[in-house]
């Protein structure tokens, strides 16, 4: 995957670039908005990691110019701590996702992956199928191996979110944002407790667990190899 990284802080830049290269991506790094804009308009990238605050052309301006120029590469915007307004502005300017510094690398990797690979092809628009699990988003029904499973609304949303991204790691904060619409991290185990209930219902009478816990990163829907 071709990734463009625009970040002015050298330590953060090296940290992200090293992680992305270790994960097997090709990384082009820029330390200024100008350089980033030249690179980004020069060729197509699979994803762009863009810092919000940059010397010269800042992240928001760069993003607007890029979008105005017809470049639609998914953009993951990075911002400093404590900027509720930044988040809104960033998403309004055309960022596809937003990550607040500091972050664990696994969080960035998971979000980048979620951005770049479009969801798996669906059988029907409202039916999600992964392995022996079938979720009907319209009827809000769940079946495992043809067996009907009754879920609470949040458990259903949680499963649907994982099913929409099969094989991809969904981090705790991604799930909090997408399932609960929380943009903060509660100190309690909301995600964990809901997941364990969900698992208990899904796995009742089955040997294998369709949801995999990726230690230190998040959860993932298993897909057949």
């Amino acid at each position, binding site marked *: 995957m071709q990734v463009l990284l625009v970040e002015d802080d050298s330590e953060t830049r090296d940290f992200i670039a090293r992680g992305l290269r270790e994960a097997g991506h090709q990384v082009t790094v820029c330390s200024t908005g100008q350089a980033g804009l030249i690179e980004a308009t020069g060729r197509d990238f699979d994803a762009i990691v863009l810092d919000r605050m940059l010397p010269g052309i800042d992240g928001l301006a760069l993003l607007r110019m890029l979008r105005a120029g017809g470049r639609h590469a998914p953009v993951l915007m990075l911002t400093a*701590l*404590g*900027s*509720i*307004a930044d988040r*809104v502005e960033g998403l309004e300017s055309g960022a596809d996702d937003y990550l*607040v510094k*500091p972050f*664990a690398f696994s969080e960035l990797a998971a979000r980048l992956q979620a951005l770049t690979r479009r969801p798996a092809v669906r059988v029907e628009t409202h039916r999600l199928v992964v392995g022996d699990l079938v979720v009907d988003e319209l009827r809000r029904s769940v079946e495992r191996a043809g067996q009907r499973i009754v879920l609470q609304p*949040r458990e259903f949303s949680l499963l649907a979110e994982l099913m929409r991204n099969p094989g991809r790691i969904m981090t705790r904060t991604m799930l909090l944002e997408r399932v*609960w*619409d*929380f*943009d*903060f*991290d*509660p*100190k*309690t*185990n*909301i995600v964990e*407790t*809901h997941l364990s*209930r969900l698992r208990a219902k899904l796995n009742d009478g089955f040997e294998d667990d369709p949801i995999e816990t990726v230690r230190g990163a998040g959860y993932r829907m298993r897909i057949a190899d």
Partner: protein
Amino acid sequence: MRRIWQSTTGVVAVIGILLALATLAIGATVHELAHEALEEQLDHRIGAETRSLLAEAIRGGTPAVAELIARREAAAAASGLAYLLVDASGQPLAGSLDAAMPAQPGYVEHLRHDRGQREAQALTSRLPDGSRLLVAADRAAIDDTDRAIRQVTAYAFGSLLLLGIAAAWAVGAITRARLHGIDRTALAIIGGDLSQRMPVDGSGSEFDRVSITLNRMLDRIASLLDNLREVSGNVAHDLRTPLTRLTNRLEVARTASEPGLHIDAALAQSRELLDTFAALLRISEVESQAVRRHFALLSLSRLVSEVVEAYRPDFAASGHRLLMAVAPEISVNGDRHLLQQLVANLLDNALRHTPAGTTVRVALEVRGGEAALAIIDDGPGVLPDVLPRLFQRFSTGDSSRSSGGHGLGLALVAAIAVAHHGAVTAQSSAGLSVSVSMPIRSDGDQDR
């Protein structure tokens, strides 16, 4: 350019000049009225005298008039009237008035007499035998009065003008002196000495009142600054401990046989520190009230229910009872994520600081025109001395901090409530009860 007429001196000077000009106008009017009245009075007197002499002429002819004139002149010069009687050929018959007989009968305003040196007001009449009678009154009285009025007016005008200028100077000087005191204090405060206060002399003057208000403002700023200083002190203090632990961990990791374990622990510690920073920054951001820009109408009832439902499994897992009584369709103008965090922090707090078996009740209702959210537990509560500081940064109910949390959750709750034009209060009798109130909004409300 300085507009001098807008300064205090200028305003008072203008008022002084206007007053002086008004005095001048009044003087001129009085002069005119008095002049007219005196002239009329003289006319009246000479008219009456002429009538009585004419009556004498009808009774006894011209010689009788001449005799009467002679008698009058001999008797009383005090009457102030002078006479001249000439026959048809112009020969004087009686009277001592030294003036030329006017050719035509009637009133003359300014008749020269006394060898042309004085002026008189006079009435000329023709007697039946063709002789002419002139009765005159000297105008000296009128002229004297006129002069006196002119003089008084001039004095009044002059002194008012001087008074106005003096007042302008004095008021300006006093104002400048008083303002200079305020100015000097303000400059000292700009210079960094916030202990300075505006001079107050206890006179109750408008300057004093302004000074008192300014001083109250300064007291408020000083107390806010003190608060800020205390908070930054607390921040420094509260961050030193985990930073020390972090440093120690890393020191140990350098020489440990299995550094990975220690590095993991250090990492966890540094994440905790970053969480604390994030929480602090979030509080500052909410307190700055820039977040109000993104407020929108939302259903607080639904929001509270959703957050409570999200926490239900956690409460069940830790052996707490969670009861909810949410009145439907309560809407507020606010930020969805902040309000979610407010409710979540209160639930976190209840869950974390109460033992298993505790019942936590969440109630949302309309009380006194406001949305009232209450989170009430029957746990151990907090000590009375902790209660007032509960919503300040880094004030955890239990001083040991053993139950985790960075002591910022409730501070953020308070900041969010205030950003929503609301308030938060806490009571601790049996268990802790935290109440948040904020104005409700309906769809019809206009944006403020």
